[in-house]
C-alpha cells in the first residue's frame, strides 16, 4: 500500500522556545517602532511645517525615508552582520575540535595494544642460527631437539613481554588472534612440539619440521625479537 502524504513537520518558528520567540518579537517590534516613528517624525516635519503637500516637500520626505532605511537600519544591520560573522568563525573554530578526523592514512591509534618490543639481543639471532643449522642436518633427533628448542626460545620471549601463566599454552591464550597474525600457525607448531615431547618415538618429517620452524620464525619476527 502506498501512502502519499508526508508527515506534517511543525514550522521552525513553533520549534523555538517560548523565550526565544518573545526575544525575536521584541527585536522586530523595536525595529518597526524605530522605523515608523522616524517615518512619522519626518511626515510631520515635511508636510505639516507650513509648506503643505507639494513636489518639494514630497522629495524631502522620500529622501529622509531613504536615509532612515538605508543609513540607519542598513548601517545597524551591517555592523550586526560583521559581528555575527566574526562570531560564526569563532564557533566554527571551537567546533572544529569535534570534527570527525578522517584521513586517508591515519597514524595508528594510542589504544592499539602494541606488543611490548623486546630489546634486540644478538644472542637470540645466534641461538636461532644454531637451531636452523641443527634442523638442516635432517636427522630425526636433531630436528626434534631443534623444534623443542625453538619452542623454548619463543616461550622465553613470551615471558619477557610480561605474559604470565603456568605453561606456554596459558601465555599464548592471552594473545588474541586479532592482534597477532602468525598466532594460528604458532599454535600448530606448539601442538607438534607437545606431540614430540610427550609421545615417545614420535617421528617428525622434514616438511613438518620446516613448517613449525617457519611458524616460530614468523612469530618471533612479528614480536620483533630479531
Amino acid at each position, binding site marked *: *500500500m502506498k*501512502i*502519499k*502524504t508526508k*508527515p*506534517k*513537520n*511543525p514550522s521552525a518558528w513553533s520549534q523555538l*522556545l517560548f*523565550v*526565544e520567540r518573545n526575544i525575536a518579537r521584541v527585536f522586530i517590534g523595536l525595529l518597526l517602532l524605530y522605523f515608523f516613528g522616524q517615518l512619522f517624525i519626518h511626515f510631520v516635519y515635511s508636510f505639516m511645517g507650513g509648506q503643505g503637500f507639494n513636489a518639494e516637500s514630497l*522629495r524631502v520626505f*522620500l*529622501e529622509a525615508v*531613504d536615509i532612515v*532605511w*538605508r543609513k540607519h*537600519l*542598513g548601517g545597524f*544591520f*551591517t555592523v*550586526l*552582520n560583521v559581528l*555575527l*560573522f566574526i*562570531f*560564526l568563525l569563532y*564557533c*566554527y573554530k*571551537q*567546533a*572544529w575540535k*569535534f*570534527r*570527525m578526523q*578522517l*584521513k*586517508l*592514512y*591515519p*597514524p*595508528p*591509534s594510542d*589504544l*592499539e*595494544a602494541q606488543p611490548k618490543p623486546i630489546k634486540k639481543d644478538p644472542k637470540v639471532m645466534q641461538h636461532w642460527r644454531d637451531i636452523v643449522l641443527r634442523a638442516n642436518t635432517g636427522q630425526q633427533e636433531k630436528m626434534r631437539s631443534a623444534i623443542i628448542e625453538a619452542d623454548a626460545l619463543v616461550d622465553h620471549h613470551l615471558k619477557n613481554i610480561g605474559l604470565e601463566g603456568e605453561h606456554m599454552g596459558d601465555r599464548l591464550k592471552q594473545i*588474541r*588472534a*586479532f*592482534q597477532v*597474525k602468525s598466532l*594460528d600457525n604458532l599454535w600448530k607448531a606448539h601442538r607438534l612440539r607437545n606431540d614430540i615431547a610427550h609421545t615417545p618415538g614420535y617421528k617428525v618429517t622434514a616438511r613438518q619440521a620446516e613448517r613449525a620452524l617457519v611458524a616460530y620464525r614468523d612469530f618471533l619476527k612479528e614480536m620483533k625479537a630479531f
Partner: protein
Amino acid sequence: MPDFGNLLFSMSPQSLLGGFLNAIGVFLEYTWWLILFGIIFTQARNAFLVWRQETWQAKMKWVVLEMKIPRLIETSPRRMDQFFQHLHTLRNEADHLDEKYPDGEIPQRYMFEMASFEGQTHFYMRVPVKQRNMIEAAFLGYYPDVELIEIEDYMDKLPQNITDLERRGLDIWCTEFYLNKHPALPIKTYKVFESPDEQHQFDPMSSFLEVMGKIKQGEYLGMQILVEPLHRNYAQRFDPVIEELREPKYGKEKMGAGEFTFQPMMMKSPGETETLKQIEENLAKPLFVLVVRVAYMAPKPTFYDGLARRGLRGAFNQYSSADLNYFKDNVKNGTKPGFWDFPYVYPEQRRRIRKQRNLKLYLGRGFGTHDNLPEIILYSHWLAFNLNLEKSIISSEGLASLFHPPTQMVLTAPHTERSESRKVGPSSGLPIYGDESALEKFLPKES
C-alpha cells in the same frame, strides 16, 4: 533620490529584460543587508548550537553493562516492550535558554548492542552513568534473572582506525540498516511471532544468534541499536496520513443516468483496513529515533562480507511485510563504493574513507546524520559526505521485537556465555539495615 539606472547591469532599463534585472538590482540594493543578516544569523546559530551540543556529548559519562542471559527466559518480548516504554519517560529536552544555548542539552541516547567475538555472542547496553540505577531498576523489574554486569568498553579492543585494521591484517564491512518505507508504517512485531500453541511460537532473535555464531576465529560481527526517545506529541505529525487512509475512494466510472449520476464508492480491501489498524496501533506507542549499525571485521584471507551482509539482511527480513515496513541496508553509505557512485573519482580512496567513517561511527556510537551545514562540514571528508546516512522512526513495540534477551525458544547454549544459576531472593525477615546489635534497641529491655 538615488539614480535607479544601471545599478548592476549596463543594460537599457527601457527594454523588458533590462527593466526586470534593474528591478532586482534595486531590490537587492535596498535589502542586501537584511538578506545577509538572515543567512549569517541562522548559520551562526547552527554553528554555536553544534559546538555546544558536541561539548555536551563529549562531557557525557557512559557505562557499558553486559547482559548475562540465564538458561531459560520464560517470557515474551512483551516485557522488553514495557521496558522501552519505561525508558521513554527518561527523555530530556532543553526547555530553557540556558539549557539550550550555553549547555547544548540534547535528548539522551541509549545503545543496545549485540557483539560476536569469534562466534560467541554477547548482549550489551550502554547507558549514561547518572541514569544507570533507573535503567537497571526498570530492566531487572522485567527480567529478574538476567544479570547486568559493568564491563570495560569492548570497543577499545577493536581496531580504532584503518591503520590499526591493516596492521592486524583485517578488513571491514560496515553500514546501517534503516526502514525503507513511510515512517508511519510499523514492522512485523513480536505479536505475530507469538502463539498460544507452542508449535507455532518462534523468536526472531534466534536467527541473529545463528548468523553471529557462524563467525570464525579472528573475526568479529557486531550490531548496535541506537535509540533516542521522541517527544510524546510526535505521533501527531502522522495525523494527515491516517486522514488520507481513512478517506473514501471513488471509482472512475460514473454510474446512473441523467440527473442521477454518481461515482460509486470503493470498498476498502481487508488488507487496507488491517494496515490502517496496524498504523494506529503503532502510533499509539512511544516512538523512538532508531539507527541500526552493523560491523563485520575479519582477517583478509577469510574475509567474506556476504556472511554478514546477506545473513543479516535475511535476519532483518523476518520483520518485513509486503503491506508494512521493511529494513534495508544502506548501500549508499556502505564500504564498497565504486567509480559509478558520486563523485566518480578515486574509488579506492573513497572506500578507505568510508570504512574509516563507518568504523568511527560504530566505535563512537554516533548517529552521524546531519541536520544543518556545520554537521555536514564536521562529519564529512571531501571524498565522502555524510549526506546519505539514514535514521528511522520506530515504536517501542518494534524496538522490542528487534532487541530483547532471547526467549526459551532460542537455542542459546552454543552461542552465548550464560549465567548458570537461577536467582532466588533472600528469605523475608532478615535484618537488612545493620547487624544483630542494631536490633537490640527494638527488643524489650531486661530489667
